[in-house]
Structures are given as structure tokens and as C-alpha cells.
């Protein structure tokens, strides 16, 4: 099998969310002496971009997105050790700590944003739902996060987004993290009011905003 076909298969594996094909194609890439970074960038990532675009346009849904991410991870389990062995690095755009704020157990929107960020080149630390303010800050410190992304689906949990920013200021840590907010009732006006650095209406927009905040546009 030639290089072009292997790269196409890696992209196809992501598009179809086929973990077996992803592993098989990753093995073939290595046995055919294909640069593992090229396998990621010209194969897997291209497939992920297709799924991301389909998701954004409404042609694909959350399961397709998560299955694509599963195939991506399956291939990376094989490619990553070789990338490290060659002392190469995948360019990471930054680390995002993401979680739903205190009192809110809604996870689906947050999961989508985490997945899109992860497949857009960010390191993502997902701390789940119903997180106390101080826990969020401690986890962000531990993860050496560049961005804290806060999700809230209820109007009664939105104040907890403001609280994270206020506590960061109280602890003199506000300049250490960029803060993004999102969720059903959240909008740009709210983000401005509480002094957040960014707001994304959709997962893809959130990734664009994170990229912009970190000066990694283009």
C-alpha cells in the first residue's frame, strides 16, 4: 500500500469513527516508514477536520464526533511512542482546563467543546460537572492550564462563572489564566459583564476563540 493510500485510510478511519482501521493504518504508516507526524497531520487531522465541519453544519451529530475522537486516540496510541522516540513533538496550541461549574450537572455541551478543542490541537483537561470554584482553580494550577473554560446550562449556575473570575482576582491569579465561558443561557453580553476573556456560541467557535486568545490564529 502506498503512502497516499495509508494517509487516506487514516483520514477515513477518523471520518467513520473506525478504531480498528485507525490502529491498522497507524501500524501500516510506521511499517512503511511514514513520518508519524505526517501521519497525524496529513491523515488523522484531515479526517477530524471533515467531521468537525460536518458537525458544525448539522450533517453529523455528537456520536460521530466522539467516535472520530475515539479513532484518533486509537491511532495516537501507536503513533505517539514513535513521535517521542524520534524526539519530535506535535505542536500543541495550549492547555485548556474545562468543567461545568458548581451546582450544574449538565455535561453534553461541555463534552462537545472538550472534544472539539482536543481534536483542534489543544491539550484538554476535563474535570467533569458540578465543580466548586476553588477546585477549578486548583485543578487549573495543577494542569498548568493556559485557559479555564467554564460551562453552565442554568441561569442559577451562571453566577458561579463570575465567582471563578472574582476568586482568581482575590488570589492574584487572574493574569495567569484566560477564562472562557459558555452554555445555553450564556452570551457575549454576560461574558463581558463578568470580565471573561472569551465566549463561544458553539464548540467550533469556542476553539476559534481559544486559538485567538492564545495568539495562535491561522
Amino acid at each position, binding site marked *: 500500500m502506498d503512502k497516499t493510500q495509508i494517509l487516506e485510510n487514516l483520514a477515513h478511519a477518523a471520518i467513520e469513527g473506525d478504531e480498528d482501521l485507525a490502529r491498522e493504518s497507524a501500524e501500516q504508516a510506521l511499517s512503511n516508514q511514514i513520518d508519524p507526524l505526517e501521519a497525524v497531520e496529513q491523515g488523522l487531522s484531515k479526517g477530524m477536520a471533515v467531521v468537525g465541519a460536518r458537525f458544525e453544519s448539522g450533517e453529523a451529530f*455528537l456520536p460521530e464526533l466522539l467516535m472520530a475522537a475515539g479513532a484518533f486516540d486509537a491511532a495516537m496510541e501507536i503513533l505517539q511512542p514513535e513521535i517521542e522516540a524520534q524526539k519530535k513533538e506535535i505542536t500543541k496550541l495550549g492547555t485548556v482546563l474545562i468543567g461545568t461549574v458548581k451546582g450544574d*450537572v449538565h455535561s453534553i455541551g461541555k463534552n462537545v467543546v472538550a472534544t472539539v478543542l482536543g481534536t483542534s490541537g489543544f491539550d484538554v483537561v476535563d474535570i467533569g460537572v458540578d465543580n466548586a470554584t476553588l477546585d477549578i482553580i486548583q485543578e487549573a494550577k495543577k494542569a498548568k492550564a493556559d485557559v479555564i473554560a467554564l460551562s453552565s446550562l*442554568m*441561569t*442559577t449556575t451562571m453566577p458561579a462563572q463570575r465567582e471563578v473570575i472574582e476568586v482568581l482576582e482575590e488570589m492574584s491569579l487572574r493574569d495567569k489564566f484566560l477564562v472562557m465561558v459558555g452554555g*445555553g443561557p450564556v452570551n457575549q453580553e454576560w461574558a463581558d459583564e463578568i470580565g471573561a476573556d472569551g465566549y463561544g456560541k458553539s464548540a467550533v467557535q469556542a476553539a476559534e476563540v481559544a486559538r485567538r486568545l492564545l495568539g495562535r490564529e491561522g
Partner: protein
Amino acid sequence: MLNFLDIFERALQGPIMTEQDFDMKVFVPTLRKIVKEYGIRYDKENPVPSNDDQADNLFEAAVALMEQVGVYCQDTNRVIQFGREEILEAVKEAPGRCWAGEGKESGVFGMRKPDDRKVPWLHVGSGIVSTAEEMMTNLIEAYGSIAEADSISISALDSVRGIPVMAGSPVEIYAAIRGIKIGREALRRAGRPGLPIMNLISTAAAAVTTIAASAPQFGLRPTDGWLVGAISELKIDFGAMNKTAYLLNWGANVGAESSPILGGYCGGPAGTAVVSTAYFLMGLLVQRGSYQLTFPVHFRHGCSTTRDVLWTVSASCQAASRNIPMPVIWLGYIAGGPNTKMYFYEAAAHLLSAVTSGAPSVQTPHPAKAVKVDGITPMEAKLGVELATAASKLDRGQANELVLRLLEKYESQIDAAPTGSTYQECYDLATGRPSQEYLRLCAEVREELAGIGIPLE
């Protein structure tokens, strides 16, 4: 029939797995398999389908889903599982009616079938957030004054003495108790103190708030209705189960609440219709609902009025009303806000779809995706009641034609829907009366809707 403690035991003893595995290794593949096996297909040309066999087939698919997937308990990381016979027994033994309200406002909220000419149980109002007690009082009084209303949802306060309500905090308890007192007082002002409040407790995210504010001295009665929410998709937690435990001990009406998300784990409309129907089985088995409140929404758009969600509403409403004796309140989230024509086009589409598909009850739909603070007025409820009554004079085929015409008016604007005005911008806060401009807009849109063939009196 299994009782609630049996369910709790299963939450302690069922198969253990991570939530991610439940979502991606159990829920998603099983749902996909069932959609294929049962041949569930979305028909974009007919947002209100008229095929009873397909409705019954959708019910069978939902039973298969509940049997093969079960319900995930987030606190124990275990799956509550049911056998097919247990599911069917719960359906067979369901009473199919709910007693609600007191005195002259008491009534039996029962079932309807597709194409039923009986007017549905009319549920008015909103659980969205108000910034002022005076406005909340005016709103609830106005809802209660709608003569046709059988039950009501009341708003939630966003702050107490200037302190923002935070979920699970003491101020949430203060706000919940205050909200209930305002609600009852406003209904007295409307001359209908017995009208059942069926979205309890709208301010309460935490079970402790629900239980605290339900103490009878604050004005609630077992004939009101409390919402116990499922977590999307097919999940529950101890917070919800604690509410059920308390309410069952009291003998109060439990409203099993569900909001299947099209575009989320359910995938497209076919999968969402199966899950939407399965939620009524979960409502009977797990939340122990004497009624259900459901609002399927679109993941991307946050509303219930896209073409695919309307089909999901209609298909699962037909499946449930023909096969599951659970009185359901169907609620629509509307993209357009108050004081926009788009709101009324969307509301009409949702009410026509649900009522002709056999909805036992409809709630007057929430404007601006239910997230605009103060973004609701009594006018939506007044016209909503008229639209629901008109819809009960039509069959599914007629509704389908009308919904297609309504979609032509708003479908292309869903993504950038106008969020409209606040209550204060449309109504005089002191007198509780609408502005002349708002009255004109409502008269115009009413005439327009009658003009396309909706039989408004």
C-alpha cells in the same frame, strides 16, 4: 409492579461502568442498532406523520431500548436494568390520569389519542427567570386569569435582597419559598387559589431546596406537581431520586421531566424519537411520575421548532399517546422571543404538531429558548391557549399542511432568531397591561394565522 425501593436497589446492584462507557459503548451503539432493526426513518416532507403502525413500531423500539440499555445512575456508576415484562407491566398498570388542583380548580389530567377532538389539558406559564417580585406577581395573576387554563407553571426569582440565586445555596431556598408564596398569592388575586402549580420547584436545582420549600406551611399541596428531571440521556442521580423519595412518601404528584437532545448522544431525529418515547417508560419506572413534562430540543439551535425536532415531537407523541398511559405535558422551546411574529409562527407549529399527535397536555411555549431573563409575557400564553384549542379541531394531515406553511415563514431564520423584548418593554409594570403596540402585533399575527387556515375563533 416494581416499587421505588426496588429501583434504588438496582441502582446499587446493576452492572458498574463509567459514564463514558455507558454513553459510547452501550447507549449509542444500541440505539443505532435499534433504529436500524425497527426501520425508524425521519420523513422531512411530513413533520407531522399520520401512520399509526409506525407510531406503534416506535413504541416497540422504545421498549427494546429501555430493555437493552436501562438507566444510568451517576452516583453509583451502575445501570438500572429492566426486563421486557417489567417494562410492559409498568405500562399496563399505569393509571393514565393524574389528579391535580383543589376545589373548583381540581381536575383529572387524562389521555388523548392522535386526531382526538378533545381539547388537551391546558398548561400555561413559564418557569423562566424574573428579576422583580412585582413582575412575577403580575405574570402569574395574568396566567391564572386565563379561564381555559387547567394548570400553571410559575417563574423563578433570580435574586433575594440583591443576592443572586446560586444553585444549591441557602439563597436558593429563600428564593424557592418566596417564589411559591408569590405564586399562590398571585393565583388568589386571579380568584383561582386552587389552580395546580405543576413545575415545582422552579428555582430549585438542589433536592434540598425542593424538599425544604415543599413544607406545607409555604402553600404547596400534594395536588400540585413537582418536576423530577432525568439527565440526558437516560440517566438519573441521587438528587432526582431524593426528590422522588420525598414526594412518594408525601403522596404528591411527581412530574417526570425529560429533554431528549437531537444532535446529542441520540444522533438524528430517528434516534431522538426512540429516546423521547423511552423517557416515558423511564418516567413510570424510575422517577415514578404521575405525569410527565417533556421538551425535546435541538442541540445546536436550543429550540423545539426545527423541522426535525417537530417530527420527533409528533412521532414520539403519537407512539406514547397510543401505547403509554402517561399524561404528558408537551412543552416547546421557541427560538423567537416575545413581541416577535416569529415566536407565534413557531408556537403555532409546535402546538399543531403536538395537539394533533395526541398530546394529553401542552404548555404554552417558552420564548427565546427559555434563557432570556424577563423574556416572557402573558400574551404568549393567551394566544397559545387559543392555538392549542384550535389545533384540537384538526387532524394530523391538516396539521402537517399548516406546519409546512409555518416552516416556510420561519425555518430559514432559526439560526439568527430575534430574541424579542422583555416583559417590561411590552407591559406596564404597575398596571400589568400590555402596550398598544404589542396588542397590535398580536392582533396582526392572529389574523395571519387564521388566514392560513388555523381555526381560531
